[in-house]
């Protein structure tokens, strides 16, 4: 072959090799940088990877983590003060007469679907407790078991993490994870969430072809 063709082929090979080399360099899997620095220690599953990593603040004041159940009226329990039914009913006997409509606790609007009977949830004699299928008491702190009586699949989802919000650490080895009980989001007498005003939308592009929907 003549000189020109030889030069052409040699340059093509050089370019090809260069491309292969570049591809190999760039496409190589991630390798952590190797160094002999005395500042680096081995990365372990529980420690951060880097001695220069200062612990971060867990200050989340810039995030609005409010739950959907807004306290209103006498729901002081959500503001931190809780009171038992017997706090009042020690002095005032609870009245239960089937023939007359109930006028007490009229502030409680019961909109719980087909669950229209107070004693489905509340224990008939112990006002501080809830009631199970067999009439036994469910403590107020175990209210989740009460809801699970009818909402079994939702309860199982809550236990598995598919229902309800969890906050804190997904990695429980590094910190606490909090989950909320049913009544921290749902008002037990009116469980459906109220409609809320959405936060502002993105701005509609100024030069869009179509008008805003």
């Amino acid at each position: 072959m003549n000189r020109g063709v030889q030069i052409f082929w040699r340059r093509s090979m050089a370019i090809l090799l260069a491309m292969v080399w570049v591809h190999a360099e760039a496409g190589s899997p991630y390798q952590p940088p190797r160094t002999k620095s005395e500042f680096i220690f081995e990365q372990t599953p529980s420690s951060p990877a880097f001695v220069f990593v200062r612990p971060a603040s867990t200050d989340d004041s810039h995030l609005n983590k409010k739950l959907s159940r807004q306290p209103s009226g006498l729901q002081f329990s959500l503001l931190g003060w809780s009171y038992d039914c017997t706090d009042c009913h020690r002095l005032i006997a609870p009245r239960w007469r089937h023939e007359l409509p109930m006028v007490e606790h009229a502030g409680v609007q019961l909109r719980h679907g087909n669950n229209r009977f107070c004693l489905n949830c509340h224990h008939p004699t112990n006002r501080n407790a809830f009631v199970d299928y067999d009439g036994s008491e469910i403590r107020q702190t175990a209210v989740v078991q009460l809801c699970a009586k009818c909402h079994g699949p939702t309860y199982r989802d809550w236990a598995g993490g598919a229902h309800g919000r969890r906050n804190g650490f997904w990695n429980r080895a590094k910190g606490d994870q909090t989950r909320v009980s049913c009544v921290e989001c749902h008002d037990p007498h009116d469980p459906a969430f109220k409609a809320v005003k959405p936060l502002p939308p993105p701005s509609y592009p100024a030069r869009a072809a179509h008008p805003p929907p």
Partner: protein
Amino acid sequence: MAEKPSPVPQTNRHVYQPLSRRSFLRGAAASAAAMAALAAALKPLLALEKGELTLDALLQKHYRRMSPEEIATVLQRLEQECQRAHGVAAQIRDLRPLPRVQFACALNLTRCVGCRRCAHACLSENNQSRESETDLNMSYIRVLELDKGEMNLETSNQYYNPETVPQKDKYYMPVQCHQCRQPPCTKVCPVQATWQEPDGIIAIDYNWCIGCRYCMAACPYDARRFNFNKPRIHPAAINRNQDYLSNRIRPKGVVEKCTFCLQRTREGRYPACLEVCPTGARVFGNLLDPDSEINYILKNKRVYILKEEVSTRPKFYYFFDP
């Protein structure tokens, strides 16, 4: 080939070849173009002279090729730049991926009410450029409103602003970077400024990105955002807890996107969008942990992904109850 040159010049023309007007103009145009190209190529160096760009910034290596000491120097320099530009003492860290972790997210479409708290929390957490606190254009999360039963995302509306949500017969679907297992964005980057980290998050080295936006064209979910302007952010709104690959303040001309809040998740915390959701519609966890919440959903719920036909194999799942 031309005639063989004779040893003795025959005429004046063989000694002195005058330059024709055509050749002169051609040469002049070519050299003017070359000089203009050279000037354009060297224009960024003017920033060096003006002091906007330091030599360290110009000569900074790709993140994946830097030693820890070099990264520490870079982090210090970036913290000083943040202090100078915004008056805020940020703490920029370099969290490495945790071993035996593959992050994934899931979203419950039965529970999402379209309140957009996740989109706004994303802004607060990730320091995007914004004109005001309600300027949502750079948020990594986009909430789409669709009609009940509608599967075509082209009919969606992200600009909904009714009096209350959820509206009747509509459902809401937030979309963000799905951290695909086969990401098209990393394939098309001409400078390898974006890559997949070992824990599954697609990261961007903002100092290496040249701003060509090929990745934005490649992404099937329109997950990436571009900084068209110098970052405009109120100093009081800056989240000081920053990381090199995620929520430090990006310069003009680079692409950014959801990183699953790696400044939080690589420390074991939940991402910001999940922490603010009022209905608990979002789930996050480690796919390699069989007891995690995300695995509960993949095992027990009807799960689907967006645009399955483009084989990106995303790690963001949508599900609904029961």
